[in-house]
């Protein structure tokens, strides 16, 4: 039975298209950010006590510890700075929350801010290579080998948690450690919840370093964990929860 070249191409083309379509449908079916973890699984979270984190102090314990643990460069130019955890004034962390009548009460208060390790992260949603993804235990991870430096995640993050290496960070690292890699120019970085320490059963560097014990870390899915106990006992707020990102960082007022 003779088949013309046209027929052959038509059949081949349709078969390839069919196979491709099936694959595509299957891929879309499993796509999407990770579903909310089941109650039995861990969800790491953090509670920062506004009362204990002394306002206006020159305390930099958490920042210094994080910087040391992760080879974070200290870049003098504000435009190019790289920061995983840092301090901001209250009215900048919770904007539009004060009026002329309430402003005085908050003036001078600073808070540590870091990646919120969201439950429904916008950054993970937009990353074109899955170089950032949400792990089962709640940590929003970064794969610096895969990141193409498109900075879409930086645009997507509502909290300004992410930094980009505009140039080689090595010259700006004051105390290099071999315990953790540096990053290279052209990738995005952010707080990784000290996942390398979590793997060894240790708490994040900022938590251990805080002299006031103002940062409490634990499993949000464990009702008896210290973070859950605090959240039951005290009033807490979060940064822009109405956006539906589900932040894992709570601030006790």
């Amino acid at each position: 039975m003779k088949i013309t070249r046209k027929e052959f191409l038509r059949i081949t083309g349709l078969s390839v298209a069919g196979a491709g379509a099936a694959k595509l449908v299957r891929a879309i079916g499993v796509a999407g950010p990770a579903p909310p973890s089941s109650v039995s699984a861990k969800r790491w979270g953090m509670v920062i006590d506004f009362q204990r984190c002394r306002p206006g102090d020159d305390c930099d314990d958490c920042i210094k510890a994080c910087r040391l643990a992760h080879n974070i460069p200290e870049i003098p130019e504000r435009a190019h700075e790289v920061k995983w955890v840092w301090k901001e004034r209250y009215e900048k962390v919770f904007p539009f929350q004060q009026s002329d009548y309430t402003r005085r009460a908050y003036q001078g208060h600073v808070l540590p801010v870091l990646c919120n390790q969201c439950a429904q992260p916008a950054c993970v949603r937009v990353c074109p290579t899955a170089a950032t993804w949400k792990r089962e235990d709640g940590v929003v991870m970064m794969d610096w080998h895969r990141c193409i430096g498109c900075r879409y995640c930086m645009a997507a993050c509502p909290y300004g948690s992410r930094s980009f290496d505009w140039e080689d960070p090595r010259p700006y690292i004051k105390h290099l450690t071999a315990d953790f890699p540096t990053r290279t120019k052209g990738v995005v970085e952010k707080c990784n919840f000290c996942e390398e320490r979590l793997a060894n059963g240790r708490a994040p560097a900022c938590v251990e370093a805080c002299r006031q014990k103002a940062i409490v870390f634990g499993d949000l899915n464990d009702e008896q964990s210290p973070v859950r106990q605090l959240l039951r006992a005290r009033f807490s707020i979060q940064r822009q929860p109405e956006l539906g990102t589900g932040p894992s960082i709570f601030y006790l007022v």
Partner: protein
Amino acid sequence: MRDRVLIGLALVLFLTLVTYPMWHAVYARTTAAGPQLKLPQTAKTCVAPVAFMRASHMKLLINWREGAVRDHRLEYTAYDGEKYRVNLSATCLGQCHTNKKEFCDRCHSYAAVSGPYCWDCHVDPTTVVARRMP
């Protein structure tokens, strides 16, 4: 007549270029000797058979990388049952090939392998003053 001169010149140029590898080798004093590697002092067994490592250590490293970073597989059981912590700086360099310059780099520069950008980020422990993490 003029053509003969040009042809002659071109011939000389051609011969020069064609024999370049030979006389350049003399000029650069290249030898057939391979790279002189400084083998690990303390570690006696490798994570994989030597033949495999020589041919495919890159494959092993990529598997380690993808497994450790993306799948949280932090421990590797070698072919002889020995367990290793998956970590470029701490295990590959820290535990075994402590001298990167006289081991890794020797072969890489001999083979003109410039690909591995691992060291743009990962730190060679011998280049930093050892310190305990706070």
